[in-house]
């Protein structure tokens, strides 16, 4: 046949077909293998965690008792919510602000490149180093009149979330078409109005998605809290005192030998994973709704 190029591969031999089928099967198996840990973890979370869950579990604090009722995880849940809320309140406006600067004003300039580089570098810092930093800088010196304090824990998590929020916000803001900006400018809008009235609203769903995902990440962090907010049994809303948190409580219970404390760890783990999953799902819904509008 004259129209077959000279370098075409030979007609598929049985051996090649066989290899193809084998490799396809291998790749399928490998993909399923990748999902096996997920299934195992979720199954174990459900079987061991649901056993611990009850109304009392969520409404009583850990009792700290060695014997008898170990109590629930009320202070841990409330502590996580409060500290992550504070961290988000700090990080999200600042992160979006820095991203706005980079996209709208700094662009490719040298200063902007420097800021971008350093924010990236911050991404590579292991989270335990953030905790160590806040510990040495703020806790040991009893800054603010307290040793371990919830606001210091929130600060460590805010530092950790900052590069994530900034970079994802930058990506989202870059996606806003320049045409929109130019149209607004052509209509005579000052720059700041272009940003606040055109760019931000357009990017809002993406910003919300990015923020929710960063919050989901921050909520699961343990190491920064060990050194800063410490662990405490009672429920407290006082930001200038120690505060419990779900990851810290789980970490404390993991190392225990008593079965009921380990059971509490599983229940707390299930609660934490559920909270993070909800944040992820909400983020995804926001993203999908924005895509469809």
């Amino acid at each position, binding site marked *: 046949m004259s129209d077959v190029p000279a370098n075409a591969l030979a007609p598929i031999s049985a051996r090649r077909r066989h290899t193809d089928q084998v490799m396809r099967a291998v790749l399928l198996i490998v993909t399923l293998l990748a999902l096996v840990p*997920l299934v195992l973890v979720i199954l174990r979370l459900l079987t061991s965690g649901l056993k611990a869950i009850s109304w009392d579990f969520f409404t009583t604090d850990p009792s700290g008792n060695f014997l008898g009722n170990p109590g629930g995880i009320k202070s841990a849940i409330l502590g996580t919510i409060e500290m992550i809320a504070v961290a988000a309140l700090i990080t999200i406006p600042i992160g979006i602000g820095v991203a706005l600067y980079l996209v709208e004003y700094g662009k490719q300039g040298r200063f902007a490149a420097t800021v971008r580089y350093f*924010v990236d570098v911050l991404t590579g810092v292991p989270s335990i180093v953030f905790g160590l930093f806040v510990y040495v800088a703020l806790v040991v010196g009893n800054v603010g009149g307290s040793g371990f304090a919830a606001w210091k824990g929130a600060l460590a998590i805010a530092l950790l979330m900052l590069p994530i929020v900034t970079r994802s916000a930058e990506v989202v803001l870059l996606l806003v078409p320049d045409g929109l900006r130019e149209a607004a400018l052509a209509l005579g809008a000052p720059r700041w109005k272009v940003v606040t009235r055109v760019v931000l609203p357009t990017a809002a769903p993406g910003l919300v998605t990015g923020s929710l995902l960063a919050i989901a990440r921050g909520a699961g962090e343990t190491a920064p809290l060990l050194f800063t907010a410490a662990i405490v049994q009672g429920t407290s809303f006082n930001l200038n005192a120690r505060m419990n948190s779900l990851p810290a409580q789980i970490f404390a219970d993991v190392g225990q030998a008593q079965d009921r404390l380990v059971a509490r760890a599983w229940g707390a783990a299930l609660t934490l994973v559920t909270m993070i999953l909800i944040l992820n799902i909400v983020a995804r819904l926001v993203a999908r709704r924005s895509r469809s509008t």
Partner: protein
Amino acid sequence: MEAGALTTRDDLAAARLAGSSRGRLADPAFKWFLTILAVLILAIIVFFFVFLINKASPAISKFGLFGFTFGAEWNVSKSVYGAWPLLVGTLITSAVALVIGVPIALGAALYITELCPARLRAPLTMLLELLAAVPSVVYGLWGVFFLIPKLRPAEQWFADTFSFLPFVGGSVAGPNYFIAGLILAIMILPIVSAISREVISTVPAELKEGALALGATRWEMIRLAVLPYSRAGIAGAIMLGLGRAVGETIAVTLVIGNAPQIGKQIFDQGYTLAAVIANEFGEAANNKLHSAALIAAGLVLFVLTLLINAIARYIVVRGNRMRDIPPPEEELTMPTTGPLIGGPVMQ
């Protein structure tokens, strides 16, 4: 648009956007506000590093930079701090994580992008991303109570049967390098597969179709067209997975056994840079040298991550340059998918 035929609505819109003369003052004010914010953040980040380096200096000046990083003994009671056993532990567990995790992540990425039916693509992707939503402490919990007991008989069998191999043998107590590496492999699966997927999906369709047109089977198309093209990007993905494995603390400290020596076998207990910080920070509170040593360990860890990321960037850029591909606008560290947005694994 028809020239000169603005409707009343457009006029109103323009008037709203243009605003009053007050707007002319607000513009530079807004710009300076954001600029100052960026300067502040830059200052904070720089302060962060300067502060840590300053606090680590008692240890560095006592042992020397080389002496600390490669010092062979970490002995708290003798006040001797050498990070080598910890560094080795970090490297071993990360190596195990790569050896196990990368083939699986890559295979999954290839399957999802090239082979699986289109309607399965989104659910499979979402499931893989869910792995990243599980916090590190929950992986540690699962590792201690599920993985370690379930795998101990198999590990013991392996150690007994293959004891002629180097680094294999001995008795399996429970926590060890291998289990830590296995958990790390699971934790880096999402990031390596997500970035690999993105890289693989940028392979030009003409390349793939060309291979198929020349009579290649699907697998051969992958082998001949997709993989060589994405080699650099995949290498970058591997480096990023490595960077995360290196910094992981909580899950590792629960399953590695916390032994300050370098274990001789893969099933021995070990220690990592991150785990030592978590275990010893409390007692170092008032000991300048000890806390300096721990911060220095943190900095070694960070420099390692920095190095790995820099190598990743270099490999990717060089690989792209060889194909005349312009550098990507987005940094490789930031996939916009799911919960993977940048940063080290949850601790």
